[in-house]
């Protein structure tokens, strides 16, 4: 009895441990298989993923945004006077950062001063709203420039980027 019991206990304990480890292995294999399947399905939807990446770029990319806005303004018949209140902060990939809230969606908000006529403004607003990058126009202030029979529009734009 005294000889066998400790060995028996050890045997039983190892049996339970083996069962637990086997369950964990099965669970992990299933998890991996699900991930693989999901990854394959996502690869088939690459076009949609590209759209999301385009809507939410990985960094502010303010220059590209300004190029886009200048093009749209020009196509609509407006002249961009200048951007205003621009400030973008982001952390480059791989940088050690323990700051809370540094990962996720980061907003960018700035003003754009334009001049032109009302129909041009409306075309511009529609073009910006239908762009692949998610841009919101939260504010429009229109003031008359009597000297040139035009309006000066101060537009507040809000967009976001994805901080990894």
């Amino acid at each position, binding site marked *: 009895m005294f*000889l066998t019991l400790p060995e028996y206990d050890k045997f039983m304990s190892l049996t339970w441990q083996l069962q637990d480890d086997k369950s964990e292995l099965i669970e992990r294999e299933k998890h991996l298989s699900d991930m693989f399947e999901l990854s394959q399905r996502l690869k088939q939807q690459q076009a949609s993923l590209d759209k999301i990446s385009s809507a939410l770029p990985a960094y502010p990319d303010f220059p590209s945004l300004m190029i886009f806005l200048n093009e749209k303004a020009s196509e609509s018949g407006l002249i961009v006077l200048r951007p205003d209140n621009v400030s973008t902060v982001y952390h480059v990939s791989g940088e050690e950062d323990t700051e809370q809230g540094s990962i996720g969606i980061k907003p960018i908000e700035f003003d754009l001063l334009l001049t032109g006529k009302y129909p041009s403004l409306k075309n511009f607003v529609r073009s910006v709203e239908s762009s692949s990058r998610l841009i919101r126009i939260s504010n429009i202030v229109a003031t008359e420039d009597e000297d040139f029979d035009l309006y000066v529009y101060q537009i507040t734009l809000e967009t976001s980027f994805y901080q990894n």
Partner: protein
Amino acid sequence: MPEIIPRTKSRPPWWINLILAVALISLIAAVGGQIFFRISAKDLDRKIEDVKQQIVDLRTPVNQEMEKQLLTYQTQFKNFSQLLSQRYLTSKALDLLETTIHPEVLYENFMLDASEGKIRMLLSAQNYGIIGEQLMIFNNDSRLKRVETSNYERDKDGLITFRVILDFIPSIIQ
């Protein structure tokens, strides 16, 4: 001559033999059991090591990278859907402005705040009759929640200027 009579051997009682036999069998069983369990435990140890190794083998850099990528996508989808739900179209507020301003009323300036659902304007008209018609249009528009007018003045060109604040229903721009 004396006769030698051999002494009869005294035999142990039968139950002592039985106890001895049982004890012997028990000892053999205990030693056998110990050996069996020890060998089995070693075998189980080896199997556990194998399973643990298989678990470790699953965590290849490729699999870890795939998991990280999927988690990134998951967060991105969640954030994207949140952003989409908060999206609004300011052009619809401009449509509202166009359809509610009287053809004979001019705007000198306006301030559209889509996030607050508010439009502030400085309007001008030739006479109070036109302003009355303008206010009637505002009153009959179900997209508007509140209309405030103030600062009625006649400017140097003889036009009546007045300030208007329109509060519109936020759902019209979503």
